[in-house]
């Protein structure tokens, strides 16, 4: 698994911390709230087979993952987006499950960052 992208790019987090200063904590919390909401949306869309909404949610999630330096999540979002476009239920489910796993790891990392502030 050495080829796999990092869960969280620490350089990105450093510059975000520098940019946001006292709002850095708020940014992390906002991201985590939003991420949980997006994952919940994706699960519902999957159940309802609402592929357009699935694609859009994944797309939007991809954007913020990119900005946060959550590279692995960002890549999986892209896979989910493509599955939504193709209306491929299996690929979508697999992408979703991957996102859940990856997010748990990112969330742990973010929490540890929060404690350092």
């Amino acid at each position, binding site marked *: 698994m050495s080829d796999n992208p990092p869960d969280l790019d620490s350089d*990105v987090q450093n510059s*975000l911390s520098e*940019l*946001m200063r006292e*709002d850095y904590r*708020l*940014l992390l919390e*906002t*991201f985590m*709230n*939003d991420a949980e909401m997006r994952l919940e949306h994706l699960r519902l869309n999957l159940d309802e087979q609402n592929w357009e909404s699935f694609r*859009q949610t994944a*797309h*939007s999630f*991809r*954007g*913020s993952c*990119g*900005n*946060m*330096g959550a590279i692995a999540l960002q890549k999986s979002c892209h896979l989910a987006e493509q599955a939504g476009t193709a209306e491929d239920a299996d690929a979508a489910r697999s992408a979703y499950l991957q996102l859940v796993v990856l997010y748990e790891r990112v969330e742990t990392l973010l929490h540890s960052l929060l404690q350092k502030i």
Partner: protein
Amino acid sequence: MATVDQSTQGASPPPLSVLKILVADDNPADRMILGRLVEGLGHEVVGAEDGREAVEKFTANRPDLVLMDALMPVMDGFEAARLIKDSAGEDLVPIIFLTSLTETDALVKCLEAGGDDFLTKPYNPVILKAKIQAFNRMKEMHKTLRAQRDLISSQHQRLVRDQELAKIIFDRVAHAGCLSAPNLRYLQSAYAMFNGDILLAAYKPSGGMHILLGDFTGHGLSAAIGAMPLAEVFYAMSARGFNVRDIVTELNGKLGQILPIGIFCCAVLMEVNPSKGLVEIWNGGLPEVLIVGRQAELLHRIPSTHLPLGVANAEKFDPNPVVLAMAPGDRLMCWTDGVIESRSQSGEQYGEQRVIQLIDSYAGRPNELFDGLLRSIEAFHGSPEDDISLLEMIMQEQAPHRPAASSLAAHHQSAQDWQLGYTFRAASVRQYNPLPFLMEVLMEIPGLRVHAGSLFTILSELYSNALEHGLLGLESAWKRDSEGFSHYYIERNQRLSSLREGWIRVLLDHTPTAEGGILRIEMADSGAGFSHQPMAVNDGYAGRGLALVTALADEVTFNTQGNRVGVVFSW
């Protein structure tokens, strides 16, 4: 309104002004990051969570720049961009789409919706700063251009309005005359006035008309403005009975006095006299005037032989016209240099030779000549010429007629019972034309005003007889053919300018009657009298003058020596 000079700063970027920037993104984390990046560059941020809010915030805050996510709930970025562009109107509001889109057709969709650029996630602060600066400069430039455009357009409108007003005034002054006379045909292109062209025509009090075609140097208002005094002098003097020499001398003096050096007026001034079948032409600086016959055959070419008006000083100025016979139905054509200088696409000039050839080709069809010439120039030039003035005058047959007496009987006044005598000696005969002065005296009698034309004809015929035969000793027999004619008038001018002795005496005697009055005119001169010459009434061109007088007056008598003539005119 912004000031106009930022764009002139060129290479060094202007100090970055504080902009108001709308950041529209449904993703709160992204919005926070971008908002902070923008604030970090010193700008003010207005946030929006979806497309509809973006449009509302745009309307309320009028930001300078919009950073907007393409895919948003409620209303997507494409629709929002359209509405924002509509609402911005003429203002340039750059919209930069925020996107993690990579597909080309999605990017195209952004452009079609009015997007000006893209910014991809994750955001790069350096690129963001560069884009904001670039669009800010573009916006400033747009503002500058618009301010300049508005300025130019308002000045242009003012200029157009000024020109319209000037044109109204010009038309009132210039077209006060008789350009609509049935024997005249003319064309003046729409911008002729601002090319400095002028065309005037006036009926003379004795019948016939004066026509002036002029072309001032230069273009625009300065070229048009000299036309005002020109027209005024022309109409005033023509109406008062002055002849070509008098008018052209006064015009030259007047223009010389008011026009700056380097501005002048090329002109043709003509006097058309149908009752005598004569035309007098003074050409200073315009192309040849042409006279064609009833079969469109070329009869005369009258080149410019004088300096343009407003150039020569009084001593150098030569006011003498060429005098030519014109039969009824003959045509005179003249134009400004726009006709012969009209150029083809390859830059070749139309030229006089083409005009002459064209006239040849219309042999037998003189009626079609005017239109034919216009068509030929248009075909040569490739489009209608916008810088020509063209005139055609057809010589009319005109029997002398006495105007009907006014139906309203004039009031009788004892002041109408008088006698006046004037003697004009050599110096004044040489330099002045006394006829307008005599006419003014006669016009003091209201009842005579309707007879002004007849009286002017009588006075001028008697006067020129006294002058030309009595004082200058010219032979009427010379005038039997058109060549002798030119000789006659050349000789007349030479002898007149060297006249040192002699006199012409005019006696005017008016007696009121119950119905009107009786005017007696006596014209005597110091010459030998014509008793030694055979009196030939109606002999070629020569006798027409006296024939006219006889037709207009009640009685014409001569003394035996033939140097005094008496005329009775009752009204």
